[in-house]
């Protein structure tokens, strides 16, 4: 494996960096302040983008786990591992920012709203994935078992959501709701979509780095095996 960061990845890094700066500029200077919530609403653009990526990332993990179980190629397992780890980081940030947003608006740090609860349970499930991964020594076994776990986790998340839905939610429905919970004008919508797109590009860059790290770890494991064989 080439230890140098590939040129394409370097370009992607800088590209996403400048795009994020641009998005921040857009959020803080070019999007109007929400009338009922004030400045705190600006967190919303980050919150939605991070929550979105967190969820997509877990889907990515499950899909690549399925492909791994069918093809058995190491790289798909590396994708699953990376997607779970990064998804967990993004989800945690989304939960915390959501909580900070909720404090002045709903006057509480936390509510047992279905979406909030489901997201937190999703985070727990995938934290479990990392524990499971850490405590399986045999690489073959580890890959198979964690792949199956991530698929079941991905199945369980929508089931959780449906089972606790029904209690009326106070979480704002941004898409497809009948009554918009806050007035999003076209500029806000545009900024939100841009933020989601930009952070998705950032996500791809981080994923790439994380997958390279997984490859490096794999190489080290191989090296260790050969050195042990030499000693025998």
């Amino acid at each position: 494996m080439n230890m140098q960061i590939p040129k394409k990845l370097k370009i992607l890094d800088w590209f996403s960096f400048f795009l994020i700066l641009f998005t921040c500029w857009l959020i803080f200077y070019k999007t109007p302040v929400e009338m009922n919530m004030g400045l705190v609403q600006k967190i919303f653009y980050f919150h939605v983008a991070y929550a979105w990526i967190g969820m997509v990332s877990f889907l990515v993990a499950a899909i690549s786990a399925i492909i791994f179980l069918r093809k058995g190629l190491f790289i798909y397992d590396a994708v699953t591992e990376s997607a779970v780890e990064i998804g967990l980081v993004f989800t945690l940030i989304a939960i915390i920012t959501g909580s900070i947003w909720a404090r002045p608006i709903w006057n509480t740090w936390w509510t047992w709203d279905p979406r909030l609860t489901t997201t937190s349970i999703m985070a727990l499930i995938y934290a479990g994935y990392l524990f499971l991964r850490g405590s399986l020594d045999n690489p073959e076994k580890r890959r198979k078992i964690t792949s199956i776990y991530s698929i079941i986790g991905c199945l369980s998340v929508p089931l959780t959501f449906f089972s606790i839905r029904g209690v009326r939610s106070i979480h704002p429905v941004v898409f497809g709701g009948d009554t918009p919970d806050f007035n999003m004008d076209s500029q806000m919508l545009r900024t939100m979509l841009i933020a989601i797109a930009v952070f998705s590009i950032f996500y791809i860059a981080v994923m790439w780095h994380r997958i390279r790290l997984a490859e490096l770890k794999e190489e080290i494991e191989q090296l260790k095996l050969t050195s042990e064989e030499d000693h025998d």
Partner: protein
Amino acid sequence: MTEIPNTLNYMIAGFLVVVVGTLIYIGSLIARWKKYSKLKVELENLLDHSKQQQKGN
């Protein structure tokens, strides 16, 4: 018209969480990368060394 509530502090807190959280994760990626590349170089040296010894014998 109603007054816009002052929620600047909450905005700053949220923004800090996003920035600091992301930076910590990137930092951990870099740290792990450095740790493992060092380990890799050491392992490779070790392997070369033992091969040379075997030749010497």
